[in-house]
């Protein structure tokens, strides 16, 4: 048996590298054939799996000095999701089938029990353990007697035996798992909901069985040989119905995750050896050229090689407008190509792809625990034995009270027995177990559809408590991409000639090509966008904290702040200029007002000097995102303090803050100082959420109670972040906090309901209301309450699915 594997290899630059890897692989024991493709950057190896393994092959390649990765199991993330889905679907369908059949059996059992009851009641012995059933049957008896009088002609013994068989069938077919699981748990010294159901129904069945087999024994002890077969069947039917609803609802809680996983296309159309081929997604390798037509899904992540299109990324980012993609832009697998056809080169695949990472992150999040659950967990783990103890106690108390109070032993047994069964049946540990996890699941799923990836229950809970939002300025409040905003000319150049905008920018941009400053990049980009040809600067000089100077096409050009202008004007040696010896104030006099105004708008003005005279001003600004001020006002309306943190000077910071509607600004903070500022706010008693791009401010994100990384729609795995915002705007922050708060409310409601249900239900079932109000709960009512208590908890969590964004 030989197997073939394709291993992506990177770092190979020449044919020599290729042959070296190929030769090394060929020498590995168990390898039949190895061929390395330099262009594709991969090695195709046929090997005997009994002798060697893919990981050995990868190791061998790495030993030669090149990087190699095992081809990631593309399917694992999605396959696991499929397995879960199928499991939950099968569970639901099976429960539904069983619930329906046992429900029908329950109705039959109830009808057949009516003649029995009449027979027993007429004997006027003690009995009536189940007042609800008695009332129901008494109400329906006249109707039944009219419709089916023949039923009353059948011998009660025959009916009892038939009911016995029917109940046995329901118990061993529909309810079998209650007993097998209860027994399996018991063997492990553990107990769960199945234990309670098994004990309750089992006890009722054994009692009825004895009453059917040896009625005389009961009669001689003064007890009516009542049977509770119908109760057993109906209890099983009701609990199965509840379970089926619960399974369906639980399935819905992961609907968001399922639809995400389904975004992954199954095939891709690749160009290999000059021809188009549809291949399975698992066979796509990094470097493949892939074709996408309008209306198709992008199969994997990659970079556009040719063509352009608008792509709908809403499923991943929540952004409703299609995003334009041109050459070199990144496309994400699972998104929908809307308008044009294009080719792209596959980059990340399989488990590393953005979609797979989101699915994995979501699943980890959905499965994570919220701290609020700790108490519920503690109670769950002791719940069943405690309830069983209460049930025994209930029996003892009822028996003694009735018996010692003068009642017959039979009456005492029957009453004690019925209440004990009701206690076992009504107790519901499931609602407690479901209260928090279902809310976490639904809420993280809802978050994903809003473009907010919450990385777990703990993050969800803490985000709900946040009181202060700290926003990093650059790239968070602002676009993070400075652009040229204003070009202003000096009233009159010394030479009398006025440069056009284009000419001015051409000189400045040419000079700035030698600079790596972000502001310089903005100017160069602007010039290129305008289609301006840029010359080569010579004699380039960088004056720290002031600006740059040099010569472009024979003109002496300098760009920088007023200090630079002054330096140049007064110095004879540094730069050739300053022959006129005029003061810097005079040079820039006509522009200072403009410069002040621009600075006040949060822009960075730069003076431009051409051939010894100040030619004008170029202003560059990192524009405030259009969505920022609305989002910030939302945050403030939610009662949150919003603070902006920046390394910029106070003036620019204040100007940006004003535009964005932020009152609190901490300016002039060095990157390392951000952590300190967050800590200071925390010490002041604030629960802080820090919002940043997740790259420069990772330490501050980690220090904050909640770190939110504003991604570009692709960086989902930002380590330091508790919450990743898929869309580049602050609205996600408001949505995340809103969702978290609502989720916490839902969790608290659920927990309250689950606790209150048991705290009230168990004593009532035990008969605590009987002495005063004469109220007793029938086991059947108890089972209905139990079945629907967990359903109501899940249903309450599901309401989060419909949560409206703020």
């Amino acid at each position, binding site marked *: 048996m030989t197997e073939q594997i394709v291993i992506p290899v990177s770092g190979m630059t020449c044919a020599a590298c290729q042959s070296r890897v190929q030769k090394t692989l060929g020498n590995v024991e168990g390898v039949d054939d190895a061929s390395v493709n330099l262009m594709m950057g991969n090695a195709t190896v046929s090997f005997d799996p009994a002798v060697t393994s893919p990981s050995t092959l990868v190791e061998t390649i790495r030993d030669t000095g090149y990087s190699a990765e095992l081809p990631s199991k593309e399917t694992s993330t999605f396959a696991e999701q499929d397995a879960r889905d199928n499991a939950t679907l099968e569970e639901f369908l099976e429960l539904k089938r069983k619930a329906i059949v046992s429900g029908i059996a329950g109705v039959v059992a109830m009808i057949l029990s009516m003649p029995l009851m009449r027979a027993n009641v007429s004997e006027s012995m003690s009995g009536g353990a189940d007042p609800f059933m008695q009332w129901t049957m008494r109400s329906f008896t006249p109707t039944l007697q009219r419709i089916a009088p023949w039923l009353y002609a059948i011998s009660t013994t025959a009916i009892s035996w038939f009911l016995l068989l029917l109940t046995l069938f329901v118990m061993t077919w529909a309810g079998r798992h209650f007993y097998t699981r209860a027994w399996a748990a018991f063997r492990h010294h553990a107990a*769960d909901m199945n234990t309670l159901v098994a004990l309750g129904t089992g006890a009722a069945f054994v009692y009825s069985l004895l009453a059917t087999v040896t009625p005389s024994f009961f009669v001689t002890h003064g007890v009516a040989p009542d049977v509770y077969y119908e109760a057993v069947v109906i209890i099983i039917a009701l609990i199965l119905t509840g379970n089926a609803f619960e399974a369906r609802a639980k399935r819905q809680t992961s609907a968001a995750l399922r639809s995400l996983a389904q975004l992954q296309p199954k095939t891709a159309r690749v160009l290999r050896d000059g021809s188009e081929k549809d291949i399975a997604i698992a066979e796509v390798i990094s470097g493949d050229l892939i074709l996408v037509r309008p209306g198709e899904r992008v199969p994997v992540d990659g970079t556009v090689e040719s063509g352009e299109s608008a792509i709908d990324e809403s499923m991943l980012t929540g952004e409703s407008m299609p995003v334009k993609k041109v050459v070199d832009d990144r496309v994400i697998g699972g998104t929908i190509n809307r308008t044009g056809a294009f080719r792209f080169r596959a980059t990340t695949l399989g488990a590393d792809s953005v979609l797979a990472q989101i699915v994995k992150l979501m699943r980890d999040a959905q499965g994570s625990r919220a701290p609020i659950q700790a108490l519920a967990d503690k109670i769950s783990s002791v719940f069943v034995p405690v309830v069983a*103890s209460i049930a025994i106690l209930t029996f003892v108390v009822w028996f003694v009270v009735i018996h010692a109070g003068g009642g017959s032993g039979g009456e005492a047994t029957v009453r004690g027995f019925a209440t004990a069964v009701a206690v076992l049946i009504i107790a519901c540990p499931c609602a407690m177990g479901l209260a928090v996890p279902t809310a976490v699941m639904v809420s993280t799923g809802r978050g994903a559809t809003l473009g907010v990836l919450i990385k777990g229950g703990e993050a969800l809970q803490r985000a709900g408590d946040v009181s202060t939002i700290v926003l990093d300025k650059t790239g968070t409040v602002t676009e993070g991409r400075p652009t040229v905003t204003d070009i202003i000319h000096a009233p009159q150049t010394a030479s009398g000639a006025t440069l056009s905008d284009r000419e001015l920018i051409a000189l400045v941009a040419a000079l700035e090509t030698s600079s790596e400053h972000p502001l310089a990049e903005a100017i160069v980009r602007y010039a290129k966008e305008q289609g301006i040809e840029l010359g080569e600067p010579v004699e380039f000089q960088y004056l720290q904290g002031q600006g740059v100077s040099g010569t472009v096409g024979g003109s002496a050009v300098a760009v920088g702040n007023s200090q630079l202008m002054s330096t140049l004007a007064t110095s004879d040696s540094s730069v050739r200029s300053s022959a006129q010896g005029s003061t810097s104030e005079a040079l820039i006099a006509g522009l200072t007002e403009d410069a002040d105004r621009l600075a006040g708008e949060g822009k960075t003005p730069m003076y431009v000097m051409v051939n010894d005279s100040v030619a004008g001003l170029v202003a560059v600004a990192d524009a405030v995102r259009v969505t920022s001020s609305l989002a910030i006002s939302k945050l403030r309306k939610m009662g949150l303090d919003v603070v902006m943190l920046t390394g910029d000077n106070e003036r620019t910071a204040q100007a940006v803050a004003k535009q964005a509607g932020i009152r609190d600004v901490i300016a002039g903070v060095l990157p390392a100082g951000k952590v300190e500022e967050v800590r200071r706010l925390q010490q002041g008693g604030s629960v802080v959420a820090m919002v940043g791009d997740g790259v420069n401010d990772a330490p501050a994100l980690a220090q904050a109670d909640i770190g939110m990384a504003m991604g570009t729609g692709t960086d989902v795995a930002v380590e330091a972040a508790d919450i990743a915002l898929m869309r580049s705007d602050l609205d996600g922050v408001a949505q995340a906090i809103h969702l978290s708060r609502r989720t916490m409310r839902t969790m608290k409601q659920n927990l309250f309901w689950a606790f209150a249900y048991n705290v009230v239900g168990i004593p009532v079932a035990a008969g605590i209301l009987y002495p005063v109000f004469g109220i007793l709960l029938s086991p059947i009512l108890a089972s209905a309450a139990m079945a629907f208590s967990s359903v109501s908890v899940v249903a309450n969590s599901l309401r989060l699915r419909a949560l409206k964004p703020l």
Partner: protein
Amino acid sequence: MSGYALNSTDWVVIGAGLLTIVWLNYYFFASTKASGLAAASDDGVQEITVVVEGGYTPSTVKAKVGQKLRIVFDRRETSSCSEEVTIPDFNVRTFLPAHEKTNVEITPQNAGVHEFACGMGMLHGKIIVTEQAAKSND
């Protein structure tokens, strides 16, 4: 309580009830549960199979510190209660397909007791990590 006179039957019922309650709580909370020792396999990984069926058998896993521990969860049922296993201290939450064996690997760095449980926290087991677990028990 003058109208009440407890006779021997009542006392028997009370006694039997209390005894059952005591036994029940002893059985579920105090009695010893099966434990298993993770044995080192050829590749230097300590490995143990835990059967998942209404609980974990063995429910206590003993392992050595600093060495990779592979727990093979052999889930022999479809009950949704046990469909996930969690080891909170190691951030593990894994889906266990029914009637399949699923490997979970962790490397305990410190001696101590780590709990593992089903997704809903109803079934419990623990991993006891000691410096010399394998030797002292061999």
